[in-house]
């Protein structure tokens, strides 16, 4: 329990540091936000008045405090370009991106863990060699290219889904999930490959350790040693990796949404970047960072459950 509180506190510290970094990054950019909002033809008086209204004349720490306070309450600022609250622009898109990332994550776990065990059990055999080469190749395909290949093969040749035929969750949840399956697969594939390789290595390392020998000496068969002893130990580094992978998948969905023309967060993010609509970019970046950091916290908690040694050494 003490460990979890400690990690929770660490998470809040990291979140604060991240928020400072993000805030500073977007506030040292040359250019006057008021001017950007009003356009270049606005009169100096109007600009000054807007500056006053937006609180841009206050010192940096005050502005940071206000921004953070607003952020916590769900006020993410106002878009320069559309003059509407960022929240309204983003909120309906969040479930799309998140569903995709979570589906990709589940796919990764479902595919990679059985495959990892399979390759480790057949270490050095033909199956292992074929899988390992395939693994390396899959790892080398960038997600957007595998997205394109999937569209080409499953969408156009096999006609398993209609490219571009996205259905929103507000219309039909079943169709929504079905459409997101292939994009999620594209996000998951490289992570699957990495997890398989990692789990295989970890399983082989662990099965060389002394406690595995002890397990054999008690009359365990290979399966007994693998499932009763080695697997749990081997999962410890894999859990860390999966945590980082989930974070990466949220970011990876940015590219994949473009490939499959899914109207998620990424489309807004990319337009906002090219339009220099900073409040929107700032809010989305901060949001993703928050997700990533919370995932890291969850990983720490899972870690503690799997490995009793964690957090007790001190």
């Amino acid at each position, binding site marked *: 329990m003490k460990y979890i509180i400690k990690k929770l506190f660490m998470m809040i510290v990291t979140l604060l540091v991240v928020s400072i970094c993000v805030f500073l*990054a977007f506030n040292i950019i040359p250019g006057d936000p008021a001017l950007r909002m009003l356009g270049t033809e606005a009169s100096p008086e109007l600009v000054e008045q807007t500056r006053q209204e937006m609180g841009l004349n206050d010192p940096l720490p005050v502005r940071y405090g206000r921004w953070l306070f607003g952020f916590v309450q769900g006020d993410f600022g106002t878009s320069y370009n559309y003059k509407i609250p960022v929240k309204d622009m983003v909120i309906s898109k969040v479930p799309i991106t998140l569903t995709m990332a979570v589906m990709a994550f589940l796919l990764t776990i479902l595919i990679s863990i059985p495959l990892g065990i399979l390759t480790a059990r057949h270490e050095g055999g033909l199956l292992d060699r074929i899988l390992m080469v395939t693994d390396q190749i899959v790892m*080398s395909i960038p997600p957007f290219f595998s997205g394109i290949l999937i569209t080409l093969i499953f969408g156009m040749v096999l006609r398993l889904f209609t490219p571009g035929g996205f259905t929103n969750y507000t219309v039909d949840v079943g169709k929504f999930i079905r459409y997101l399956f292939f994009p999620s697969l594209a996000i998951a594939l490289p992570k699957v490959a990495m997890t398989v390789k990692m789990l295989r290595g970890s399983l082989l390392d662990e099965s060389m350790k002394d406690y595995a020998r002890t397990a054999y000496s008690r009359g365990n068969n290979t399966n007994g040693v693998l499932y009763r002893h080695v697997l749990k130990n081997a999962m410890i580094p894999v859990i860390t990796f999966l945590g980082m992978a989930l974070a990466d998948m949220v970011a990876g969905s940015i590219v994949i949404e473009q490939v499959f023309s899914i109207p998620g967060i990424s489309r807004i993010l990319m337009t906002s970047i090219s339009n220099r609509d900073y409040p929107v970019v700032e809010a989305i970046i901060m949001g993703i960072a928050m997700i990533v950091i919370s995932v890291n916290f969850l990983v720490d908690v899972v870690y503690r459950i799997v490995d009793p040694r964690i957090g007790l050494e001190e």
Partner: protein
Amino acid sequence: MNSYKKAIHKNFKENTFFRWGCIITVLILLLVVVGLFWMPYEPTAMNAAEKLKGISLRHPMGTDNMGRDVLSRVMYGSRITLLIAAGTVAIGTVAGTIIGALTGYFGGMLDEIIMRIIDALFAFPSILLALVIVSIFGIGWIQLLLALGIAFVPSFARIVRGEVLRCRNMDYVENARLQGVSDFRMIFVHILPNIRGVLMSSILIGFNNAVLAEAGLSYLGIGSQPPYASLGKMLSDAQQYMFGNPSYVLCPGIVIVLMVLGFSFLGEGISRWK
């Protein structure tokens, strides 16, 4: 030195991963190096008469929607991709090693602060961090290089710091300290040579990640701007023609895959060194 040659020869013969890694990497490097001196066509030259042609003798990889030769554009694009990946890894390695070595060795309050910042940066997936930097400094390949470079510093710093921490408490470091070795000499002469192996493999992995990140970002339209070619941008342009003219989308894609595959085979081959 002779034993090195022998070992490489032996591995080339027996170590399948190493052999194919060498072959693929040499092929890609050949593509880039030849492209420095000679390309079949000017990569930006359009030809309205030859739009979206398939693979032929005149255009070994076909042409794109503006009639430009895909092979020439791939040659140019892979040069940029390799350059940015190498630059990224160089920035990441040098800055990461210095930060990691100093914080790991000296520890203390500065270490705490820098590691908190590194942790915070680590919370951003590298694509995201690059997006932030590009959105601040604008779009272009130099910004992209800078953005990816900075995005890669935390992981290198973390790895080096961990290794230095591990080495710092080893007996041989204390032994050297007893003989009067200074801190600076300790870090750079005694400790760093011991993390060569780890650094080498993280460079190979980092290089691949850099290639993938560069391709991803230029797919999103951040990076080399038209009319200059980049592999990622070519894919995003080609995507809408993929059913009618698959060679246009497949060729640049396969080159990216091979580029990454070559290095990851090399890495795998080195880890199975005989």
